[in-house]
Each structure stands twice: as structure tokens, then as C-alpha cells.
């Protein structure tokens, strides 16, 4: 019989997330899904249960779950110190959780979002083909609360083949570097060759009103090029990683729950890998954008 997880403590914010729900952007629902897709996929790979199964995205630790039945789990992403019935256990390592045991995640020293993957996946009812919570469009399961019992799916034919992965902790550097590609409206801030109006080169600070929708950056301003100074942009589609520059010049970097359209120019777009790392930045972190081609 498949195990289940009982939520003993839900921490600040714990969401069910998977690969997301592509295909509905034209009617106002974005893809959503795990904010750090790389960390989520690593968890799925170590758990050995294939693609698309849902995990728990844990913001700054604080989650404790009791295994109802025997569970096989792994923690990836932000290196939250994990313990099993009070004994420390390793990060990015396959863990056996006996029936009745409690796995708890503490506050990670760096990074923002940890992923608790249970082999078989969190088996709540999907909405539009995905179990992801989209915080912007309010589609998908509610955030976890103490007392919730989460069903776990039956693993498919695969078995775990990797039981531990050694990783550098995210966000250890003095300032994080995020690689950007040209956006559709790079010309509005002077173009790719012109440093994007100061976007490239400045040291930005992640502000407090950042969430799964996007990071708001402060500490400098992007200058509009003269011909575009007072032009209004009709709404157009947005991608994860889009760097949008509102009239005030303080950029927004869109993450997993970004709106499907936006009315300010997107001057650059993070690489997929950089968008994952952006989702691990905390308010107050310093960040620089590095152009790649």
C-alpha cells in the first residue's frame, strides 16, 4: 500500500509543485510549477520515479511531516538542515522514513526554496493536468496546513539509481550572477550593445516584495532610450525569466507564477538555469545580470 505524509508543521509556505500546466496561457493561466525546476527535477531523479510527479516546495524550512507507512524521500534545492526523528540526515540523498517517523526541515543557511520529493509523488487531485499551485491565478491545491494528510502515488517501473548528489550550496557568492539573453524590447533601453540602459553592470538588490510571481530589483535604475521615453507598450506575452522594466526603471524578473501578459517592455530574458537560481535569491541578496549570446 502506498504511504501518506501527515503535515505536523507547515512552516511559512509549503506548496505542491510539479512541472506545471503548459497550454493555458492564452486563457490567462500560466505554466506555474516548481520555481527552481532544476532542483525539483534532481529530486525526481534521485527518487527514481520519472517526470511529472509532484513534490513539496518549502519556503525557508519549517516543514515537518510524519510518514504514514514507509516513505522514501529526498531533499533538494536550498540546503535546509533535515532531521529524521531529531537525527541529522543528508541533503540530496535518498532517505528511508519508517512508519511514524518525522522528517523535519530547518532554515537553510542559503537559498530560499527546498524540495521534499517523496518517491511516488504527492498524489493530490490534478487541476488542468497539473498538481502545481499557481499563486497568481489561484489554480491548484491550497498551501499546506498542519494536519493535512497527503496521499503518495505508486511509483512507476523505475528504481532509484543515484542515492546522493554532491552540490554547491546556492547563493554563497558575494553577489549572484544571472545570465541574460536579449529580450524583445532591448532597443527601448538602448539595445544589447549599449548595456541595456544600465541593467547590465549594476549591482541590484532583491527587494522584500518578491515572491513566486517575480523578483523586484532595487538599488539602481534602468534608463529608457530617448526615442522610447514616453511610449506605451500594448500588453504582450511574458515568459519565465523575463526582465521587465516599468517606467520607474526598477526591473522585475518574472518567476514561475508570472502573469501571462504584461504591459511594460521586456528588455532581457534569463536563461532557464539562471531563472532557477533567481528563484533561490532572498530579499537583500545582491545580484548582477551578465549578458550571454
Amino acid at each position, binding site marked *: 500500500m502506498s504511504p501518506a505524509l501527515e503535515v505536523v508543521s507547515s512552516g511559512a509556505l509549503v506548496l505542491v509543485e510539479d512541472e506545471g500546466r*503548459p497550454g*493555458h*496561457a492564452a*486563457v*490567462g493561466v500560466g505554466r506555474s510549477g516548481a520555481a527552481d525546476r532544476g532542483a525539483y527535477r534532481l529530486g525526481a531523479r534521485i527518487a527514481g520515479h520519472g517526470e511529472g510527479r509532484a513534490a513539496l516546495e518549502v519556503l525557508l524550512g519549517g516543514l515537518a511531516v510524519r510518514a504514514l507507512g514507509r516513505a522514501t524521500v529526498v531533499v533538494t534545492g536550498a540546503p535546509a538542515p533535515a532531521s529524521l526523528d531529531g537525527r541529522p540526515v543528508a541533503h540530496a540523498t535518498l532517505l528511508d522514513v519508517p512508519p511514524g517517523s518525522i522528517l523535519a526541515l530547518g532554515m537553510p543557511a542559503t537559498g530560499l526554496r527546498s524540495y521534499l520529493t517523496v518517491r511516488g509523488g504527492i498524489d493530490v487531485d490534478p487541476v*488542468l493536468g497539473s498538481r502545481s499551485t499557481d499563486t497568481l491565478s489561484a489554480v491548484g491545491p491550497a498551501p499546506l496546513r498542519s494536519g493535512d494528510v497527503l496521499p503518495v502515488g505508486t511509483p512507476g517501473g523505475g528504481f532509484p539509481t543515484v542515492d546522493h548528489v554532491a552540490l554547491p550550496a546556492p547563493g554563497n557568492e558575494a553577489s549572484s550572477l544571472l545570465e541574460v539573453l536579449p529580450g524583445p524590447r532591448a532597443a527601448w533601453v538602448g539595445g544589447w550593445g549599449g548595456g541595456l540602459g544600465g541593467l547590465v553592470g549594476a549591482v541590484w538588490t532583491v527587494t522584500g516584495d518578491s515572491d513566486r510571481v517575480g523578483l523586484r530589483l532595487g538599488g539602481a535604475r534602468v534608463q529608457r532610450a530617448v526615442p522610447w521615453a514616453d511610449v506605451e507598450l*500594448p*500588453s504582450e*506575452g511574458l*515568459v519565465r525569466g523575463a526582465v521587465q522594466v516599468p517606467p520607474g526603471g526598477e526591473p522585475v524578473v518574472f518567476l514561475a507564477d508570472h502573469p501571462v501578459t504584461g504591459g511594460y517592455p521586456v528588455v532581457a530574458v534569463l536563461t532557464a538555469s539562471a531563472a532557477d537560481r533567481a528563484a533561490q535569491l532572498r530579499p537583500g541578496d545582491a545580484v548582477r545580470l551578465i549578458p550571454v549570446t
Partner: protein
Amino acid sequence: MDSSTGIPVDVLPAGEEAVLVEVADLDDVLALDAALRSVAAEGTGPWSAATDLVPGARTLLVIAGPRADLAALSRSVREVAAAADRSRDPGRTGAAVVEIPVRYDGPDLGDVAALTGLTVADVVAAHTQMPWRVAFGGFAPGFAYLVGGDPRLRVPRRDTPRVSVPGGSVALAGDFSAVYPRPSPGGWQLIGTSDAVLWDVERQPPALLTPGTAVRFVDVGSDS
């Protein structure tokens, strides 16, 4: 070049997994959206990884997934655009018209009459007589920006947006009309209320109004 066929496009970069296709106006967006949607549905070649076509006022975003060949996709977009019929109006050639029943009892109906110089009865008549069509979505699940209605109904947004607009509110702003799928903040002028279910995740498709759909509002009286 024959002006009735071929849509001029500009394919702009949008990162590793998408391209943004810019065209001249909303009519071209709708014509290109219809043409690309059928190619995307076939899912061959560079379209095999494509997940979303997102129309905007003058653009179409093609989201193609992590393993997409964006150069091949851009070539395909240009080929489809060059072969597309620019004069085709997907709002008229598409499937049946979606009728939306409305009680014209909105709190801003009087303001809209004053702003347009029409009587309240004229506002209702103008809103119901001309067909609308869905230009694009966004803002909220199931929210559709409707265009093509009576140009006399062009009104500005309210000076102060409401903190909460009731779900089902039928509204006007600028070139657009819309029905709020659920309660949300909003600055549009509210002229009526509808019981139409715009968004239902249990329904296939969940959105009542998808891009290109023709829409007609029907006055069902304020007491029904």
C-alpha cells in the same frame, strides 16, 4: 504584393524557450493566431515542443519548451505568415457565436451614458447590437478582452479602481469590453451582471471565451 494575403511579421527574441512575433495590428494578430494554431496542433517539426500561443494587442508569443529549435520555429512562423490570408476575419468565419446574458444593472451605467452622451437605453442597445470578438486573454483565468463593438462605447477607466469588482460584472474600458470571471480588483466601468460561467476548471475547455471567439451580449432585463 497582393495586400489581401500575407501577414508581415517581425520575429523578436524572447529567451531560450520562446519567440515573440510582432505584427501590425490586432486583425493581423487574430489572423496569424488562427493560422499558427492549426500548424501548432499538427505538432510536426519545430512545433513538436510548442506548448502555448499567447496573443497580445500586436504580438503573438510562441512558447516552445526547452528543447526547441527556435531558428526552425522562426522560419516556420515566417512561412505560415507569408501564406496566411490577411483579409480573413476569424471572428466571422469561426464557429457559433457565444451569447452572454446580461442584466444591465451596473453601478457605472449612468456614468457611461454621461461619458458617451447616450441614454442608458442607447448604451444597452449599443452593447448588445454589435457582435464582439475575443482578442486575447490575460489578467485572470478566463478573462477575455473583447473588441469590435460599437465605437461609441469607448470610455476611460475609472479614476480610482475598485478594490473588488464582483464576479460576473460586465465592463467597458477603452476599446474593450469584458466579463470579470471572479471577484478581483478592477478599474473598468461596470454596466451589468452576467451569470455566464466564464471559467470552470472541470469544463473542457475551461474558458468560455478563447481568442477569436465571436460574442454577443443579450439583454435579459434587470429582474430576471
